[in-house]
C-alpha cells in the first residue's frame, strides 16, 4: 500500500490539504463524521493520545506513508475510529472531504478501518486483540531487514487486553526485549473484571518499560512516549475518564 493508491473513492495525493490543523480542530472534524456538536468521553478516549503521537512523535507523513523506514502506528482498538480519522485528515493523510461519508457505501471510512482502502492506515482492525501481535511481527520484520530506525506503535484499550492474544504478544515481546515496540493502552476502565495489580503490573512482570500518565495531558503523554527504554519494549498507560462516568 502506498499513499498514492487510489481507493474506491479515488483518493489521490493531489487532494490532500495543505494548511495546518490543530488539536482544537478535532471536534469539528469528528462532527463531520458523527453529526454531533460534542462528543462524550468514549468517542474521544483516544483523541489526545493519537494526536500527540502524530503531532510530535511518529516519523511519518503523507509523503513518507509508503516508506519502509517510516514509523508504524497500528490502531488495534479499531472500534470508534473517529478521532483517528480526524487526526489523519488533520495531518493530511486523508482529505477532509471524505469525513462526512463515514460508514457509507461510497466511503472508504468504515466504522472499523481497512488498510487496503486508506492511505496511511497500517492495519485493518475491528476484532480486538490483533494489533499487538501484528506489531510484534512488524517490529521483527523491520529488525530482520536491518531497519533500526522505525518504531512500531500499537494502540489498545484496557478492555481489549481481556483478549488472550495480547498476553501472547506481551510475554513474547518482553522475553526477547523487542525495544522498537511500543504500546499505548487507553485506560478508561471499561474492562468488566479489571486486573489485580493494575495494568502496569501486567507489562512490568513481562519485562516491559512502563509509564502511567494522564491521557489528556499532552506534555505528559509526550514525555511518556519519548522516555528511553533500552533493551525493553515500552508501554504507556494513558488514563482517561471512566467509560461509565
Amino acid at each position, binding site marked *: *500500500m502506498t499513499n498514492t493508491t487510489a481507493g474506491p473513492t479515488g483518493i489521490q495525493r493531489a487532494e490532500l490539504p495543505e494548511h495546518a490543523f490543530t488539536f482544537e480542530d478535532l471536534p469539528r472534524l469528528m462532527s463531520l463524521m458523527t453529526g454531533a456538536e460534542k462528543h462524550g468521553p468514549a468517542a474521544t478516549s483516544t483523541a489526545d493520545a493519537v494526536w500527540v503521537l502524530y503531532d510530535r512523535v511518529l516519523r511519518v507523513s503523507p509523503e513518507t506513508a509508503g516508506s*519502509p523506514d517510516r514509523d508504524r502506528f497500528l490502531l488495534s482498538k479499531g472500534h470508534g475510529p473517529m478521532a483517528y480519522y480526524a487526526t489523519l485528515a488533520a495531518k493530511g493523510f486523508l482529505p477532509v472531504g471524505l469525513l462526512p461519508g463515514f460508514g457509507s457505501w461510497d466511503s472508504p471510512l468504515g466504522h472499523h478501518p481497512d*488498510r*487496503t482502502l486508506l492511505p496511511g492506515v*497500517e*492495519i*485493518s482492525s475491528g*476484532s480486538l*486483540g*490483533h494489533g*499487538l*501481535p*501484528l*506489531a*510484534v*511481527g*512488524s*517490529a*521483527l*520484520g*523491520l*529488525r*530482520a*531487514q536491518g*531497519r533500526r530506525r522505525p518504531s512500531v506503535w500499537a494502540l489498545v484499550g484496557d478492555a481489549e487486553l481481556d483478549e*488472550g*492474544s495480547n498476553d*501472547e*504478544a506481551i*510475554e*513474547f515481546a518482553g*522475553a526477547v526485549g523487542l525495544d522498537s515496540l511500543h504500546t499505548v493502552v487507553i485506560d478508561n476502565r471499561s474492562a468488566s473484571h479489571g486486573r489485580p495489580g493494575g495494568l502496569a503490573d501486567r507489562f512490568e512482570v513481562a519485562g516491559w518499560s512502563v509509564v502511567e500518565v494522564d491521557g489528556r495531558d499532552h506534555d505528559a503523554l509526550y514525555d511518556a512516549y519519548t522516555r528511553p527504554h533500552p533493551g525493553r519494549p515500552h508501554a504507556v498507560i494513558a488514563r482517561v475518564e471512566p467509560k461509565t462516568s
Partner: protein
Amino acid sequence: MDTMRERFTAVTSHLLDEDPRLAVVLAEIGADGFRDAAARHPDRVVNVGIREQLLVGVGGGLALTGMRPVMHTFASFLVERPFEQVKLDLGHQGAAGVLVSANASYDWPAGGFTHMSPGDVALLDTLEGWTVHVPGHPDEAETLLRHAYRTDERVYVRLSLQSNGTPRPVSPDGFLTLRRGSAQAPVVVAVGPLLDATVAALAGVDATVLYATTVRPFDHRALRAAVAGRTAADVVLVEPYLRGTSSAAVAEALHDTPHRLLALGTAREELRRYGQPADHLRAHGLDAAGLRKSITAFAGRSPAAD
C-alpha cells in the same frame, strides 16, 4: 527416504541462506529442526513459544514489512486454533504468507482427535485466495514449497507422513492425468498421499485417473478435459481429509455437464480409536480394498455403464 517434514526443514533452512525475504515462524513444534538455521539467521527464525495466535499474528506483521513468512506447526494448531488470525492477520490485511502443516489427517492416530485436522482444507475454502498444496511425496513437497516461497500468494502446504512410493512430476499449475479410461469410465481424482492406494484399487478397473497435489485452485480444466465429449460423467474424489471437501469445486467445474459424484475422504464422525495410520485408512475406507469396493459399486450403478 526422508519425510516431507524433514525435507521441509532442510529445504527451508537452505533457502533462508539465499533469500533474505524468507522468515520462519514456529511455536515450539519443529524448533529443534531449525536450530542450525536459527543460529545463522537469528532474526529470521522466530520461535514464539506455545502461542499459536501469535504465530500467525507475527507472520502477518512480518508480511506487512515486506517479508515472506513461513508459519509451521501441526495443522490443528496452525489452521483451526488461530483461524481468526489466518482470516484477519493475513487475508483481511491484504497480506500473504506460507502455512506449512504437519500431522493433518491420521499421521499420529495414537495421538487422538486433538492432533487431527480433517477440516483444514474445508476451513480455508471459506476464505479468499488460498492456494492449497497436498504433496504425495517428499520430492513433490520440495517442488511445491520452493514454488510457494517464490510467489506472493497465500499458500497452505499440507505435509504428511504418508507418502506414495515414487514421486510424480507435479507442478502447481494443475492436475496430472495418469490414466485414461473409456468414455464410460469414472474419472477418479486422487489427492496427494492417497494416489498409490487409488492406483492399486483401480487395477483392472476401467477408469481415468487424475492426480491432484494442488487442490486449490481446483483444476477445472483438467477435469473438464477428462469428461470432454460426454453427455454425462461419473466423478470420484479421493481426498485424505474431510469427505466432500472438494465436492463444491467439482460442481463448479462441471456446472454445465450432468454428472454423478462419489466423494471419498475421512468421516465426519470421530472414530475415537487409536492405532496406526493403516487402521484409520481402513476405517475411513481409504485403503485400496475400501476404495475399490466404493468405486466399483459407484461405477456399477452408473447409467453410463449399461
